[in-house]
């Protein structure tokens, strides 16, 4: 491997055809931003922020369902902190918190198991959101709920998987030349799972970690592949990601969940991209199916095009006027790690 100075010099001097790379994971977007990676490479290498985090693509109907529970007597909604500001029809969890709704901020689904054990007269409704990285912890918590015989836990799931989403993006946007594959998700699903996509769409997929030098190395790897017409899957995050992933985590996901269609705000319904409780665990089901209705995005919102990199955030007519981090519409503005949010803070 070349040293980082040579790599940076190469990427800065790059003057070939424009290259569009998509980083799918919000943590990568944040790392790229935090380390000023864009300022270190040629403007001809464009880094596009994909659908970002599972939270910001969560549709309105899901938030509404959660809030419905939060208003019910003896029901407590349990959510990770980052769900709090995602807008529902009548506001976000955070905007309604002052009105006496029952919300428990959880740091781990296991917090809920303990609370549910202590208070058997209350029902704990978990807003189960996340990618493959988070899904196993919900599954493990359910396993614990099973062993304790808890009857007062429900899951409303908006769990998502990354491969169907990548496939959808590859289908709908040809101009993306390569993908920076998510580091955390890949620790679970492995790197081999990207091979079919690489083969079918003839694009490089590179599994990446989060350190600055490492990200530059990943970008270099993809750029060199593109220049040479390559479409390999490279796993450059080998200290965390195995080719076949984490078999135990995959098994427990599979034990409790089964794939189904899922709604992604700004993209639409993607078949097979959601994870739902298997019928044998129906007693924990809080009504997750069919939560597809999404807020009607204003006609001028061009979120879907931003997500696939067809336009830059500032080309959307609502950018910074109707749509701001404090009052977001599209997922890319909702999340601090979304493309619009980042562009807004750099405007």
């Amino acid at each position, binding site marked *: 491997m070349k040293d*980082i100075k040579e790599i*940076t010099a190469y990427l800065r001097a790059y003057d070939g055809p424009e290259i569009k790379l998509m980083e799918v994971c919000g*943590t990568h977007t*944040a790392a790229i*931003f*935090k*380390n*000023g*990676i*864009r*300022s*270190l490479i040629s403007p001809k290498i464009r880094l596009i922020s994909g659908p970002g985090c599972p939270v910001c693509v969560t549709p309105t109907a899901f938030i509404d369902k959660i809030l419905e529970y939060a208003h019910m007597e003896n029901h407590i909604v349990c959510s990770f*902190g980052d769900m*709090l*500001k995602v807008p529902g029809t009548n506001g976000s969890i*955070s905007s309604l918190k002052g009105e006496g709704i029952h919300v428990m*901020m959880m*740091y781990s689904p296991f917090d809920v198991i303990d609370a549910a054990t202590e208070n058997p007269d209350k029902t704990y409704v978990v807003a189960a959101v996340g990618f493959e990285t988070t899904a196993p912890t919900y599954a493990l918590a359910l396993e614990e709920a099973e062993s304790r015989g808890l009857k007062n836990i429900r899951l409303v799931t908006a769990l998502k998987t990354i491969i169907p989403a990548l496939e959808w993006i590859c289908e709908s946007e040809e101009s993306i030349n390569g993908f920076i594959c998510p580091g955390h998700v890949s620790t679970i699903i492995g790197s081999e799972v990207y091979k079919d996509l690489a083969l079918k769409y003839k694009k490089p997929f590179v599994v990446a970690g989060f350190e*600055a*030098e490492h990200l*530059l190395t990943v970008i270099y790897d993809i750029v060199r592949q593109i220049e040479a017409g390559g479409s390999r899957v490279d796993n450059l995050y080998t200290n965390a990601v195995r080719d076949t992933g984490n078999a135990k985590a995959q098994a427990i996901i599979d034990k409790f969940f089964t794939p189904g269609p899922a709604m992604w705000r700004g993209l639409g319904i993607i078949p097979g991209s959601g994870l739902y409780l298997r019928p044998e665990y129906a007693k924990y089901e809080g009504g997750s199916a069919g939560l597809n209705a999404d807020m009607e995005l204003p006609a001028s919102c061009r979120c879907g095009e931003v997500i696939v990199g067809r336009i830059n955030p500032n080309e959307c007519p609502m950018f910074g006027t109707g749509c701001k*981090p*404090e009052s977001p519409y599209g997922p890319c503005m909702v999340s*601090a790690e979304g493309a619009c*949010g980042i562009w807004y*803070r*750099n405007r």
Partner: protein
Amino acid sequence: MEKITMAHGSGGKSGAELMARIFGKHFKNEILDKMEDAAVLEINGRIAFSTDTFVVTPTIFEGGDIGKLCICGTVNDLLMMGAVPKYLTCGFVLEEGLDVELLDKIVESMAATAKKAGVTIVAGDTKVVEGHGGLFINTTGIGIIPEGRDISASNCKTGDKLILSGTLGDHHACILSARMNVENNIKSDCAVLAPICNALFDGGIEVRTMRDVTRGGLGTILNEIARSSSVHINLEEESIPVSDEVSGFCGIMGLDPLYMGNEGKMIIVVPGEKAEKALELVRGTEEGKNAAIIGTVTEEKKASVTMTTRLGGSRIVDVLYGEGLPRIC
């Protein structure tokens, strides 16, 4: 175990006993002991006047407690204006069920911190409300600004240097760790910043701006300074001190130390040519031993903050948006 009840807030006998037993014992001083409706103070010249309310949970944490915190917070705000802190008032809101022994401990900690800071607690009030055994404390303080001192967020000029008094994020990481039952060695940095201020003034440094780096973190506070002074500030990522443990914790939690709260750190802006001398003075204090020069005021065109990253890239440092994180102070 004795608990606070509504009777303690009624103004009747139980309340009076509690006041005598806890507050009277720890806060003893000439002005307070008169038990008048208001403290009468002799003050000459310009004063700095500030208030802050403290709601942190847990009330006792590694490196401090809500008692120490509520003195440090208001005293530091006065210090940041170049004032010599003199008098404090404190208002307590106690929740029913609060352990009296815990209250005693917290009040004792307040008294000890006030003594160290050289301030006198001259008035106070206690109310009891329904709840779950918690407590909230407000402190309000007055400090006297010595003749000739002019410290303000609007004083920065091109060429000035920024000194950060120590590592970022310790308090915030400590409180979050406690709430999440994460075991580590991270301690709150909760401290009175007077030794640093005194070292600078005694050393004859012409200080332009001082700010304690509390809620919103360094990123937010520097943006406020940049706006007030209409200047551009550039930071050097490499020179910003963060302890290895806090850095690791932030990595796992997805937090950025630039936006984390501290309770014993300050940013000092001084003329460029005085920076090395000022740094030496700050480093000479226990509170400022890890201080570093972290940036420069570069031009007076656009009010903004940027950072040169470790790899030589450049990024904007914006204010903290949205909720921030759970209550930490």
